[in-house]
C-alpha cells in the first residue's frame, strides 16, 4: 500500500503510478496533466516571448503592418510576462527586446500621426 503524494489517497500496488520519484493516483495524474502541473507529462509549451519578438521584429521589414503588430507585441509582453515559459533554461531578454522594439514602433507611429495631423 502507498499513499498518493498529491491527495493522500491510499493506493494498492496496481493503482499506484510512480512518476519522478512520486507516487500518484490516476485522478491526480490526469489533473496534473490537464492543469500542466507535472512538467514530465508536458509535450508542448507556447513561447510567448518568441511570439512577441517575432511580432515586434518581422513586420518592421514591411513597415505598415507594425501599426497593428506593435501594439499586439506590447500586449503579449505585458500579459504573459510572468507566464510559464519553456521547460529549458531561458532568460527574459526576448520579452525585453520585444518590448523595446514595439515601444519604439508605437512611438514612431504616434510621432508620424501627430506630425501628419499638424
Amino acid at each position, binding site marked *: 500500500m502507498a499513499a498518493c503524494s498529491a491527495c493522500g489517497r491510499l493506493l494498492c500496488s496496481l493503482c499506484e503510478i510512480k512518476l519522478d520519484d512520486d507516487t500518484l493516483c490516476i485522478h491526480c495524474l490526469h489533473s496534473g496533466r490537464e492543469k500542466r502541473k507535472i512538467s514530465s507529462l508536458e*509535450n*508542448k509549451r507556447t513561447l510567448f516571448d518568441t511570439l512577441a519578438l517575432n511580432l515586434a521584429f518581422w513586420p518592421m521589414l514591411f513597415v505598415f503592418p507594425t501599426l497593428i503588430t506593435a501594439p499586439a507585441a506590447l500586449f503579449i509582453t505585458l500579459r504573459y510576462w510572468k507566464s510559464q515559459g519553456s521547460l*529549458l533554461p531561458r532568460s527574459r531578454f526576448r520579452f525585453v527586446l520585444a518590448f523595446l522594439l514595439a515601444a519604439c514602433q508605437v512611438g514612431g507611429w504616434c510621432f508620424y500621426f501627430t506630425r501628419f495631423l499638424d
Partner: protein
Amino acid sequence: MAKDEKDYVKLPGRAFFLFGAKRLWQGPDHLLWVESLMGQEHYRRFYYKDIQAVVLQRTKTHHYWSALWAIPVLLFGIAVLLSATTPYVSGFLTLFFLACLALNLILGPACVVYLQTAVQMQLVPLGRLKTAQRVMDKLRERIELEQGRLDVSAGPARPAGADPPPGALHAIRPERDPGPAAKVTGAAEPLNPIFHILLFSLLIAAGICRILQYGAGWIALGFLDLLFIAAGLGLAAVALVRGYHQIKGRWLGHSTWTALIFFILHGMTIYIHYIIVALRYPDLAMNQWGMLRKFVEVLMSDHPATMGIQLGSAAVSLILGLTGFLALRRK
C-alpha cells in the same frame, strides 16, 4: 513536482527546418528532444533506461551540399573573370558561396543517427559525424549509469539452445517511416506528383524567363516573372500540404521546402524593390499601372545589383528545378 529547468544541459548539434529547429537536451534521467516551431516548443522524452541502441550511419549528404555550393562559385567566378568592369555583385556572391562551401567542408562528413527503443526507431537531429560522435559519447556515460556497462565479449543474450534468427544482425536497419497516415490505415497512399512536376517545371521556366529578360529585353517577360513568383508560392504550398506525409524526410520533401523558401525570399526581395521604386517615383503614386510598368523596367535594367540578383535567382531557380526532377525520379 515540476522539474527544475536548470537540470537540462544543451547537447551539441541542431537541425533547422522552415521556421523552426530541432535540438537535443540532456536531462537527469532522460534525453529531451525539443522541436521549436514559431512560438511553440514540442517535447519528446527518451528515458536512458529505455534506450536499446544508438545507430550511426554515414551518408553522402555533405557531397550534395558541396556540389550545391560549388556550382554557384563556379558560375559567379566565371562572371568575375569575364567582367569588363569592377565586379562588385559577382565578386560578393562568389565569396559568399565560397564561404558556404568552406563551412560545409569544415563541418565534415554527414550521417544519420537513430535511437532504438522497444517501440520505435527514432531519427535524431544530428547531421554531422563529428557532432554525432560527441553526443554519443555523452549519452553512453548516462546510459551506462542507468543500465550498466555493456559486456561486448559476452555476445547477445539468447535462451539456452536457441539459434539466432536469420538476418538478426540486420534487424537494427530502420525501415523508412511511411508517416502517421500509413500507421492508421495500414498502407501508404501513393503520392500524386502532379503539383511537384508543375512546381519544378515552373522553377525551370522562371529561370529561363529571367535570363531571357536581359537577352531579349521584352517587358512582358518581366510581368511573366512576377506571375511565376506568385504561382510558385501557391504551387509549393499546395505540393507540401497535399503530399506532406509521403514526402516528409525524403529528398523530394527537402526540394519542395527549399523551393518554398526560395519563392518567399525572392518575393520579399521583389517587394522591397517595389517600395524603393515607389519612393523614387512618387509622381506615379496615383497611376498603379504606370508604377507597375516602371517597376518592371527598373527590375530589367542593367544596374549591377538588380542584374546580379535577377541572374542569381535565375541560377538558383534552374538548380532547384533540376534537383527537384531528380528527386522525383528517386521517390
